[in-house]
């Protein structure tokens, strides 16, 4: 009855295979992709390619294991085959995986460069400076002048310390009022905009994670790290209505929400660093929101440089 142990192995592995196959159809798959038109599609494609290749080898090896456990369960009087190895087999199961692994390695190089290499990032339509701190995301939406200064100072440099105190002076007029717009935990952009983020941290490591954009980047104290993403043309999830605030699009009876999360341990409130990504329908809609927002900032003291 020894051979029945193979059934335990087979049953567990079969259940896992079934769960993997069923998961995407019962809401346990990747979250909806809102970055299909740029690198998001590559990420999902590579994920599924690797899933298919590893899935094949998973099934192959586990079937050999389970069938082997069943067929070669010990019987009195039987003897194992006296063999120490097989050169041809060793060559085959070294070279075939080597070729496949090399293929996996090469096929992804461009996608990685597209996502993270600063020099290859698409020219931005929109720039946001994100400064992480315990436990919130502070956003700065630069005005035209600041934007020019930022790109001059940072756009060409890949990895730099904040150059000087001058960076602190950006975005303020001579009386110290902010001319940039500052807000907390809200990323605003519009559908189809190449959105560049200059990512900073004031205290500890954080990680800027937009699951629906397939984007993640750690924020490191002392560094300004550029990343980018582009929401799809149909990724807009609501609009700004003056006096009423943000009105979400509905999808299956739910608000169409793009979450922003922190993915690097940053202290007791790590799990609370929740933000939202607001994708406006177009630039005009975004500009209407920004004008409203800047007006509100002017009307309060919050805009004064501290």
């Amino acid at each position, binding site marked *: 009855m020894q051979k029945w142990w193979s059934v335990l192995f087979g049953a567990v592995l079969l259940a896992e295979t079934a769960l993997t196959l069923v998961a995407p159809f019962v809401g346990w798959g990747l979250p909806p992709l809102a970055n299909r038109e740029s690198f998001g599609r590559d990420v999902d494609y590579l994920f599924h390619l690797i899933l298919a290749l590893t899935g094949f080898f998973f099934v192959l090896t586990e079937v050999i294991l389970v069938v082997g456990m069943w067929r070669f369960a010990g019987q009195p009087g039987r003897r194992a*085959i006296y063999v120490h190895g097989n050169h041809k087999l060793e060559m085959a199961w070294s070279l075939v995986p080597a070729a496949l692994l090399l293929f996996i390695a090469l096929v*992804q190089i461009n996608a990685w460069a597209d996502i993270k290499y600063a020099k290859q990032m698409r020219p931005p339509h929109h720039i946001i400076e994100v400064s992480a701190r315990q436990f919130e995301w502070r956003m700065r939406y630069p005005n035209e002048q600041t934007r020019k200064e930022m790109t001059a100072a940072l756009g060409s440099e890949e990895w730099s310390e904040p150059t000087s105190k001058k960076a602190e002076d950006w975005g303020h007029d001579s009386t110290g009022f902010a001319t940039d717009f500052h807000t907390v935990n809200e990323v605003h952009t519009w559908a189809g905009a190449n959105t560049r983020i200059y990512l900073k941290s004031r205290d500890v490591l954080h990680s800027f994670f937009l699951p629906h954009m397939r984007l993640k980047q750690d924020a490191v104290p002392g560094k300004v790290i550029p990343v980018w993403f582009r929401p799809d043309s149909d990724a807009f999830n609501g609009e700004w209505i003056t006096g009423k605030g943000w009105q979400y699009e509905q999808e299956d009876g739910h608000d169409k929400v793009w979450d922003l999360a922190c993915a690097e341990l940053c202290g007791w409130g790590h799990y609370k660093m929740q933000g939202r990504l607001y994708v406006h329908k177009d630039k005009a809609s975004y500009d209407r929101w920004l004008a409203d927002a800047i007006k509100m900032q002017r009307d309060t003291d919050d805009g004064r440089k501290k």
Partner: protein
Amino acid sequence: MSVGQTHGATGHEHPELSFIRKYIFSEDHKIIGIQFLFSGLIFFLIGGTLALMVRIQIAWPNNNIPILSKLFPVSWGQRMDPAFYNMLFSMHATIMIFFVIIPLLGGAFGNFLIPLMIGARDMAFPRLNMCSYWVMWPGFLMILASFFAEGYGPGAGWTSYPTLASVDITAPNSHTGQILWLLALMCVGLSSMMGSVNYITTIINLRAPGMTLFRMPLAIWSMFITAILQAMALPVLTVALILQLLDKTLGTTFFLPHAGVAIGNQGTGFGGGQPLLWQHLFWFYSHPAVYIMILPAMGMVSDIVSTFARKPLFGYRPMVYALTGIAGLGFIVWGHHMFQSGMDPRLGTGFMIATIMIALPSAVKVFNWLGTLWASNTQYTTAMLNALAFVSMFIIGGLSGIFMAATPVDVYIHDTYFIVAHLHYVLFMSSIFGIFGAVYMWFPKMFGRLMSEFWGKVHFALTFIFSNCVFFPMHIIGVMGHPRRYADSTAFEFLRGAHGLNIFMTVSAMLLGLAQVIFLANFLISLFRGQPAGRNPWHSNSLEWSAPSPPPHGNFETTPVVYRGPYEFASPEVPEDYLPQTRKLSPA
């Protein structure tokens, strides 16, 4: 327990030792190994309890939990404080890695098996060996004391990334706990260093006549390679620990950036260091440490599989080369932990290629284990079942690693539960199954008695089922984007569907924990009541089985002479299906 009972009956000229010199401050590699085994199993219980508390918080983050919440101070509102939660998972990982898996594989089985399997009377440096155990004790005491430090103890993750770990204002009340953590790890590092120097010397110099390198069992090969890895990588970790300790106590700024950091209106002042420096130093050790935590298990599993398949190990030399390949590549892949860290992404491309290629020697090993199983005459002992579980679970853990190695995919799944699933498939479901297998295999040699096969199999079946129920769904919620180290994920829209799975995993984890009671009872009762084992209960070939069980001080009655490799099962030269390494065949 009958350790050392046969002592004195062997005719070796060892003076009778006092109880303290024999069992406490012992220089006998077997006693030291058993000391590592017992302390490792005790810490396994502590680490497991921490894991269960982590799971409870994730499944029911906003509820008052029965019993447990009564233990919490009133100021927490009878719920778990998130800082306490951070301490739980940080200490769970620290204890499991540095106080359970590494000491069990290297300390317990390395110590016990190396001299026995190469035919030596003891380690090359017995006194150094004794020190390698006793230097663990300051580490034990400090890591346990850190639980009682203000602010619940270290909570910056087992990776202790600066600036959260190194700058006091970023994590209030973390000062003492983190310092204890750093000091405790230094003790563990010192212990591993003493151990590895000893293992390397012993394996090179003290092999019995005829025991050529390519006649060594894979368990010894793997421990040899592991010892080399440790000896080369540990100094880097030690340096990193000292640097962080200096940052923490003397106000140096190795990991503090130029402009310093600030919380509210409190600032540190100028730095001049680099937070990423820690990550490079830490992973330069801790990536090889991943292999330190799996290679010895691979070696022991190879021995177990061949013994109970009653068939020579398939591809002995390719297996040795694969071990060497994994170890060699293991030194140039540390950057794959840092793809999203802010390291120059062009470096990521290089690290990615090296990382992907490390799947190759791993695949070679899997295929050779399957080759050993094929056309075998397998006996499903508890040791064999655990070893086969190692193989089947390592396949999952190895394949899921390829997802993270692929840099663009890693952008999305980095720091999600996918990595938590992956690392538990390698470290829990491979290394721990390997350790269980090794315990069932060599318990008779250690204590002269057999563990109960029936309860061993019950324990195995439950552990196999529930561990899969705990860790496999972690892949699924990882793909959904669930970040790791979250005390509460219920506020996120995109994780709405994950909560049911989280509860399922927590319930399974409790059952998994409960199943370990069976192992514990079987282990303890068998020490005293197990059936006497005899020298060679499994009809295996390697040298330790030619010694009495348990072997006396000095191990062998006469120095063994080795005539062949350790995997001569089903040899046509003899009627039995095994042919011990020491048996001299008269020419036909």
